[in-house]
């Protein structure tokens, strides 16, 4: 039930946006993409104002105005300068991204505990489920909206507006200032969109810079669905259709989620769905839709409705089938079902999730065997959290585990009839999960804990005894940060010896300045409590502090190795472990109402001896004894390290390399020994994605990067100059500027260079054909790799007494002519090496050469299966293994600067016995023995 009511509510709040799209698309005849931006503008304005204490109603009005301004700008560009409407919309939408970021000041503003519609409804709730109350209240709001908008379009001004879109010439001749009315209309439309953004932000509990993506498509989908549902010329009907369209669209999304479609496929499904509705009239030639002006309405309504119903039914069936085959059928059996939901791919949340699953296995719950543990990740989208929760409810999950505060808040307000266990939540009381650890919602329990401030202060005072002054930096716009700092102040007040000095920042770019000013005030130490903004610029604190030799104490153990002296925080692995035990107790029949909230039981204390030595501070033995994490450069293997294995594409050779790397890393035990985890990154053959991955790796401070392919090397070398980087599957690193010679390379980069074994191939030619004189080669000079190989071929040909006859091509289609030309010049052998253009024509070349009885040599052993005569290539699995071995040396502590680049070509030979027989050649027995691939 919640699923459907939730969907209807979303339909209600999105109906404002849909009406906006309707006004531009149907009244003004162009789909205005500005809405993707103005939607966020509306949300941003409300979020900032509400957080700043402005009355929510005034904030919503200003959201409307802000959206309207955005629309007016688009309309102005469009009408005044005659810029195409779509283009004007794209321009404004793009610009709005920056404007929205400026308005918000950060990419996401939480509104969970701010006043607004949600808070108002909760406060006045007479005792019915919240979603139902929201639904009832908004049913009236939407009714009023429907009446108001329908009436508006029947007023003189509304009629003039419709006329401008319908027939601008006629409107102009009737004295309507077309441009002005158009501007008013587009502004009005975007005002509605802005208001919708404001409502959605309040409903989902946050505003986010990315929440507008695809708004126009959802809007168009809803408008089109609405027109299929209600077909009439009456404006009351059309507006009602648009509102219904918004609701139906959300119901369909809910349905798709309900049957188990992956949330990340939603946008694709939406696009296909809209396309299906658009082309349905053409596929089912029942009416004369789209034949002439006015034709839209001539189609028999019933027929269209039938087509629509059929389409919807097909969609549902497909979706249901998808679920049936992908979720192993709808019969759950009676093994326990646990639904896990996390808000995003954040490190802490992943650690919690993984340790939970691991501990569950230890407790005897193995997913797929005797339990169903579904893992849901909302990818930062609160709307998706709700949908995932609804799905778990549908699937009759026995327990729901929510990781992070956002998910927990959504779950406790939504789920009343099922146990909810939360983990990695700082303060469950402020989100309404309970009043004390024992007096809480009957179906909710979990693990929580604010940062262990007392212990942190204790460590500070025992390392720095006597009267001291500590400095702290925080971002006051974050509730959580303020909460932590207030606690720190309180603890310090109780301890008479420590004075407090603080500076606030409003963004990570201000942190350095703040740290410098605090350092200049002569503080004795920095004590930083958890604050995402400050920690995102932690390096700048380290920089300012080390200049004055001031120690840093932090609550985030993960960042210990980055230059803090000591850290004291929770081990989030423990959060998952404790949550697993709670889930186990609930599954065994305990009533969650009787299980008190647990605090994290395990505190991690970490010290960094390297920093201590540098500052000349000695750490008291009792602290060292308590430390269960020691920063990496002090030796030991306390902090887990991360290695990113970065492939440029899904190319099969690169996958083989990756297999080699992974097998070797696992087999050698390096990962276990040094506590290294591996994340796989794949740029999907897109350079922009590659760059984003590199930035992400640098930002997340991976400890090691291993790349496969030249392009991955190039992208990584361009964006990273600090993290040790080992490359493999690269033909020529010297050409890419990362090295001059094997020993002289960029300090953080080393690896394995694997050239095509051109010389060995030419040598084999000489062995097999002692009398041959002329080798033909076709290559594309635009390919760097091909140029290198051809150069090597020239050299080798000279050495073994051949003449190399070259023909160059610019595309695969020219290969045929180039080959004919070479055949005229009486070549004895033909060679293709490392040329992607020519290799595409391999089957054709092989066929022609076979006719002319000319042996074909290549550098990929698998080519013999497609008609090559003899091939020597690199064994890319071995290349991967060799790359991993080099990575192991770096993981073990060697500096990449001291490891020379290794030229390594593990040769693998492919021979074609069938062609050998035809050409009357026998391969030497030794060659046959070495051959990895033999075609008979």
């Amino acid at each position, binding site marked *: 039930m919640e699923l459907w009511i939730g969907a209807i509510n979303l339909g209600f709040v999105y109906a404002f946006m849909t009406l906006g799209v309707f006004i531009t698309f149907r009244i003004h005849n162009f789909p205005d993409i500005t809405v993707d931006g103005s939607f966020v503008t509306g949300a941003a304005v409300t979020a900032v104002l509400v957080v700043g204490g402005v009355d929510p109603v005034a904030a919503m009005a200003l959201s409307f105005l802000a959206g309207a301004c955005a629309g007016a700008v688009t309309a102005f560009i469009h009408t005044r300068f005659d810029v195409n409407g779509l283009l004007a919309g794209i321009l404004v939408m793009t610009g709005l991204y920056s404007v929205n970021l400026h308005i918000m000041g950060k990419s996401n503003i939480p509104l969970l505990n701010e006043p607004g519609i949600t808070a108002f409804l909760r406060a006045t709730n007479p005792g019915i489920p919240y979603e139902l109350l929201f639904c009832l209240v908004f049913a009236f709001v939407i009714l009023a909206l429907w009446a108001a908008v329908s009436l*508006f379009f029947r*007023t003189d*001004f509304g009629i003039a507006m*419709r006329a401008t879109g319908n027939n601008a010439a006629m*409107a102009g*001749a009737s004295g309507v200032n077309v441009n002005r009315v158009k501007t008013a209309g587009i502004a009005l439309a975007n005002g509605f969109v802005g208001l919708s953004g404001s409502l959605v932000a309040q409903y989902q509990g946050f505003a986010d810079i990315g929440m507008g993506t695809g708004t126009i498509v959802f809007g168009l989908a809803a408008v089109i669905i609405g027109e299929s549902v209600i077909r009439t*010329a009456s404006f009351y009907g059309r507006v009602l259709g648009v509102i219904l369209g918004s609701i139906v669209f959300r119901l369909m999304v809910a349905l798709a989620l309900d049957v188990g479609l992956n949330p990340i496929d939603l946008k694709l499904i939406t696009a296909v769905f809209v396309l299906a509705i658009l082309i349905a009239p053409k596929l089912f030639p029942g009416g004369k839709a789209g034949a002439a002006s006015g034709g839209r309405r001539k189609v028999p309504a019933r027929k269209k409705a039938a087509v629509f119903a059929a389409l919807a039914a097909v969609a549902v069936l497909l979706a249901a089938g998808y679920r049936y085959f992908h979720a192993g059928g709808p019969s759950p059996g009676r093994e326990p079902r646990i639904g896990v939901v996390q808000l995003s791919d954040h490190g802490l949340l992943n650690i919690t999730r993984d340790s939970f699953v691991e501990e569950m296995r230890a407790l005897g719950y193995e997913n797929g065997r005797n339990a169903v543990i579904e893992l849901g990740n909302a990818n930062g989208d609160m709307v998706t959290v709700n949908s995932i929760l609804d799905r778990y409810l549908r699937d009759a999950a026995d327990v729901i585990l929510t990781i992070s505060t956002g998910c927990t808040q959504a779950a406790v307000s939504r789920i009343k009839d099922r146990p909810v266990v939360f983990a990695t939540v700082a303060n469950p009381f402020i989100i309404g999960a309970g009043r004390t650890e024992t007096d809480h919602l009957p179906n909710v329990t979990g693990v929580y804990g604010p940062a262990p401030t007392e212990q942190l202060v204790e460590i500070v005072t025992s390392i720095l005894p006597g009267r001291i002054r500590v400095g702290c930096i925080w971002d006051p716009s974050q509730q959580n940060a303020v909460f932590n700092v207030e606690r720190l102040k309180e603890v310090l007040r109780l301890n008479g010896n420590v004075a407090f000095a603080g500076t606030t920042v409003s963004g990570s770019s201000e942190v350095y300045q703040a740290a410098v000013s605090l350092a200049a005030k002569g503080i004795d130490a920095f004590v930083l409590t958890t604050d995402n903004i400050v920690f995102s610029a932690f390096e700048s604190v380290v920089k300012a502090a080390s200049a004055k030799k001031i120690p840093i104490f932090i609550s985030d153990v993960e960042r210990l190795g980055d230059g803090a002296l000591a850290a004291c925080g929770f081990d989030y692995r423990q959060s998952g472990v404790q949550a697993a035990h709670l889930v186990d107790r609930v599954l065994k029949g305990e009533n969650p109402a009787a299980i008190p909230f647990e605090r994290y039981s395990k505190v991690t204390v970490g010290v960094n001896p390297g920093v201590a030595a540098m500052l000349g501070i000695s750490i008291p033995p009792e602290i060292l004894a308590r430390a269960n994490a020691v920063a990496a450069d002090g030796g030991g293997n306390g902090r887990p390290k991360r290695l990113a294995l970065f492939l440029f594409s899904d190319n099969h050779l690169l996958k083989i390399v990756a297999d080699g790397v992974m097998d070797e890393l696992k087999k050698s035990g390096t990962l276990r020994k040094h506590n290294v985890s591996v994340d796989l990154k794949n740029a999907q053959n897109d350079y922009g994605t590659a760059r984003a991955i590199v930035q992400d790796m640098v930002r997340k401070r991976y400890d090691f990067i291993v790349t496969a392919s030249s392009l991955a090397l190039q992208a990584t070398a361009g964006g990273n100059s600090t993290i040790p980087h080992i490359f493999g599957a690269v033909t020529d690193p010297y050409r890419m500027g990362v090295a001059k010679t094997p020993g002289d390379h960029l300090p953080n980069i080393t690896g394995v260079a694997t050239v095509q074994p051109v010389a060995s191939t030419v040598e084999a030619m000489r062995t097999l054909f002692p009398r041959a004189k002329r080798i033909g080669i076709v290559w594309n000079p635009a390919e760097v790799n091909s140029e290198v190989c051809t150069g090597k071929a020239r050299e080798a040909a000279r050495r073994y007494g051949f003449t190399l006859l070259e023909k160059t091509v610019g595309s695969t289609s020219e290969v045929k002519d180039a080959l004919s030309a070479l055949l005229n010049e009486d070549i004895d052998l033909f060679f293709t090496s490392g040329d992607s253009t020519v290799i595409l024509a391999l089957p054709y070349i092989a066929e022609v050469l076979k006719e002319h009885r000319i042996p074909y040599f290549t550098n990929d052993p698998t080519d013999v299966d497609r008609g090559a005569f003899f091939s020597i290539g690199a064994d890319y699995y071995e290349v991967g293994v060799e790359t991993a071995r080099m990575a192991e040396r770096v993981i073990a502590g060697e500096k990449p600067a001291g490891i020379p680049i290794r030229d390594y070509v593990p040769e693998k030979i492919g021979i074609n016995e069938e062609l050998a027989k035809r050409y009357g050649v026998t391969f030497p027995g030794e060659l046959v023995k070495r051959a990895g691939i033999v075609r008979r």
Partner: protein
Amino acid sequence: MIELRDIHKRFNAGTMHEVYALRDVRLEIRDGEFVTVIGTNGSGKSTLLNILAGTILPDSGTIRIDGRDVTGKRDFERARFISRVFQNPFMGTAPDMTIAENLLLAHLRGQRHYPRIGLNAKRREFFKSRVAELEMQLEDRLDTVIGTLSGGQRQAVSLLMAVIRQPEVLLLDEHTAALDPKSAAQVTRLTKTFIERGKLTTFMVTHSMQQALELGNRTIMMHQGRIIDDISEREKGRLTVDDLLDKFSELRKAEKLTGEMIEHLRREYL
């Protein structure tokens, strides 16, 4: 009273596609005068009508209507005193709106459009009686969407829209040319009725010599952007279609000698 002074209009000026559409046009139309305009293709008659309507602004010259200088005013600003019927029956009406809504918009021509419900019962009664004058059985179909009407019906509604609020000037742009003969006759009859009854100052472009002679009390002939003849009501009575055709063929003969030579001389000596 319409006064056009020294009107020049060039399209694509300065390019190889330059068209000199109007050259030094002077014209005065007195109140209540019904002027029909004929001319060859590209003679500038439609451009002249659009210059009057304000959809095209002249390069130079002045336009005065009842003493007001409206030269720089655009179409919607002139709509207060000028109304027009387009050649294409689809141009004059908004197809997705009802007859009543179209009429309301016409009725508000030149007025401000407030967000209030203007289509009240009184107005509907008024529109109904006016639509009845068209004698097309449309008076009971006020809420029908215009897009479903035939071309003749749409043009008749367009005409009614142009005269529903007495305009100071009525512009008709070959408004019967795209209709079947029966509808054309019907719309022509309605045109005559409305103009006579309202004593409307009218500027009507037409293709049909017959129509030009039958309707109105003055006919002007245009050629190559100039007014080459101005036929008064008295003279019109004596003329036949053949006389008009003779006038045009004389022109063509004269043109062969002069037009090309003048251009040639100009190119050679200037």
